[in-house]
């Protein structure tokens, strides 16, 4: 066991776990964050995506030890039901899911995309999300949601 002061969604959270523990289980079980999902544990599907220092990472294969120095952002850190982030608002407005299990990863990768490219083309959005799987086949709605958020976020 080792102790870490993780910086998650702007707060410092102390946890005591094995250094090799995937960040995902710390976020879900120790910090009780529901956003990041277990999908494959193999970095293949993207459901577990969170941001570390603004970059999307797959928390299912990221040891907590290597996340200890970064700023972690989960979908809970973007906004709340009462104060939605424009991406969350756009995904809801476009009804951009069926089951929604992949939605966390889509939103988080879209956040990283829009932070670096406020006006992405459709192709750029699809490229940014190509490593994310969606089984209900809400892809077109997801692309529209990212486009909508980009429009809303532009000054």
């Amino acid at each position: 066991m080792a102790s870490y002061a993780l910086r998650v969604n702007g707060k410092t959270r102390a946890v005591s776990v094995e250094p090799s523990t995937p960040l995902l289980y710390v976020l879900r079980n120790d910090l009780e964050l529901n956003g990041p999902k277990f999908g494959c544990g193999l970095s293949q599907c993207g459901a577990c995506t969170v941001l570390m220092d603004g970059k999307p990472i797959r928390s299912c294969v990221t040891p907590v030890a290597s996340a200890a120095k970064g700023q972690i952002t989960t979908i809970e850190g973007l906004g709340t039901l009462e104060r939605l982030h424009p991406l969350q608002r756009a995904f809801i407005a476009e009804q951009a899911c069926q089951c929604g299990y992949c939605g966390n990863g889509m939103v988080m990768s879209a956040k990283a995309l829009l932070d670096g490219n406020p006006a992405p083309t459709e192709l750029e959005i699809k490229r940014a999300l190509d490593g994310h799987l969606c089984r209900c086949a809400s892809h077109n709605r997801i692309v529209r949601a990212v486009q909508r958020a980009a429009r809303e976020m532009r000054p």
Partner: protein
Amino acid sequence: MSARAPVSRRRFLATSGALVIGFALAPRVALAQDRPAPLPGSLNTNRMLDAWLRIEPNGTVTIFTGKIELGQGIGTALSQIAADELDVDLGRIQVVSGDTARTPNEGQTAGSLSVEQSGTALRVACAEAREILLAAAAAKLGAPVAELTVKDGTVAAPAGATATYWDLAGSADLKREATAKAKPKPASEHRWVGRSVPRRDIPKKFTGGAAYVQDVRLPGMVFGRVVRPPSPGAQLRSVDEAAVRRMPGVVAVVRDGNFLAVAAAREEQAIRAREALKTSARWGETASLPPADDALYAHLMSLPVPGQTVAEKTSADASAPAKTLDALYTRPYQCHASMGPSCAVAQWQEGKLAVWTHSQGVFPLRAELAKVFDVSVENIRCVHAEGAGCYGHNGADDVALDAALVARATEGRPVKLQWMRDDEFAWEPYGSAMVMKLSGGIDAQGNVVTWSHELWSHSHNTRPGASTGVNLLAARHLATSRPLVAAQDVPQPSGGSDRNAIPLYDFPNVKVVKHYVADAPIRTSALRTLGGYANVFALESFVDELALLAGADPVEFRLRQLKDARARAVIEAAARRAGWQPNTHGDGARGRGFAFAKYKNLACYCAMAADVEIEHKTGVIRVARVVAAVDAGQIVNPDGVINQIEGGIIQSASWTLKESVRFDRTRVTTRSWADYPILRFGEVPAVEVVLLDQPGERFLGVGEGSQGPAAAAIANAVANATGKRLRALPFTPERVKQALA
């Protein structure tokens, strides 16, 4: 579901007690001497009004449904129906679904029947409840019912006096059997039905709310994992349990016959312990699987299973065929491949079991758990908690048994057990491999005069409740193994293996024969559409082949042999919106195909045109655009219908272009997404959906309406582009290159 709420034994008993006391759910239909009149939808088997709704003193209405949320938006659609019939704002409706202690038993949430069955029941029950409330209001206000008006649950008399539903809740007795005498509202008076109301389940899904069974957390909860055998039929010879028990955090190692599982204080500890068990376990394996690839289909057809005639129609008037054609179509085993591996939470307390899982049928699941544990159903509560989209019978029921087996060893502590990705791929019940042999003949005018569809398939329904056995995976692995009892095929008119095998076209001579192979070396069950996807793929491909043989335009060819006016209307609407140009051939690399089906020949009508592009060098097919038209009867939520149809088309494009389960003679070798690629963002077609609303018509399910036509439209588009016919699913680059060579 409240993910954080501790479920004490007292609360558990209190809520399950309501089953016995509050709701008379036991269907009186069971009493033969007292056979009541049939009631609409699921009211027929759940006949008490208070089983469906409760007017709450706090100004809300709770509706109860046995159908569960699968990401199809059923909770929202049912709320719309209830709000309209009761004259209350949508925001007042609370939904309780899929809980053996609280809701009606509506069997499985399957077959695109939820709006038809549960929606119809709620519509009728709420209309009747409104009449009862109005009668109570009339007595209170001293005015005749006919002169009362209702707005958002407030009943007003002409003189201005009012009474609210919430005041009347005590005097309006809903503990009575429905009569279905109250007339539901005409479509013109609907305020919520017919509108694209935003889904109630979505906001929490994008804000980290407790939305899924994976988010259920109970006090003292531990984490479980299973260690499945490496192959079907494998026998556990030895495993070093003691070493694993000594690992950090391990709470229990469960070994029962060939069932092996572990529980640990932390999830990653359970995963490590699973790895350790896997490494030390020694199994005896047998080569029990069928041959793969093309040999699979020859094998399936060679089995000594006689054909059963499903449909036969003959006409003496029809002329003899001038030209005939035969074609063999095949479909491999395919996965549900849910994004989130199956997960359940289970807890045993004083001989009582509570289970939370994403089962599509909590009542049938409860019945089978009761058999495995040899306890009465009253001692088991199964509660639906949403999981990732399941698309049919995946591991959601199986994992409930896994969790319950592990929870027996944790001394009352709840166990959250989630499958790993390889568990899901290797052990979910697949959509069955199928062979469809089509033969047909056209006369001199180019009309179909003979049509034959012969198919070979394993089961499409081995869900809990589908046979007298126990259809839960681990039951096969326990030391006291439950003998497998093969399920019967789902009978017509909806059909299982033969779903949609009977053409809706008015062909004069038709014969449909099925070879239902009940014994299956690889476990199969309901994958969205059951046999419908493969049968429509074959049927609508073959219609296209005969149209080409007749030198006819595929759309005109369909229309001239189809009397059903609603079928014709969707075909015409799809062709029109797609800008269909008759008798146009593709240019070798690009083409357009058309297809149609009425799902189950009972549910929604769906027609579509697909545009494809074929890269000859790589053999890659890209579906660029699909334009579909749908008639779903009266539409409750237009955006919900579009979402289902669009999702169905894209999912089907993925099945059709990419998906097949891999296996050798011993093991399933599909274990991860790397082994089972699905369609990605860059490959997804643009989709346009035209809705043909039919206000006043009965609801027709849409969740499975588009998959079959999508497969055929893609195949027909490839043929249109290249002149080459693809008859073996999926259309992988290797197969495409082979066909074009």
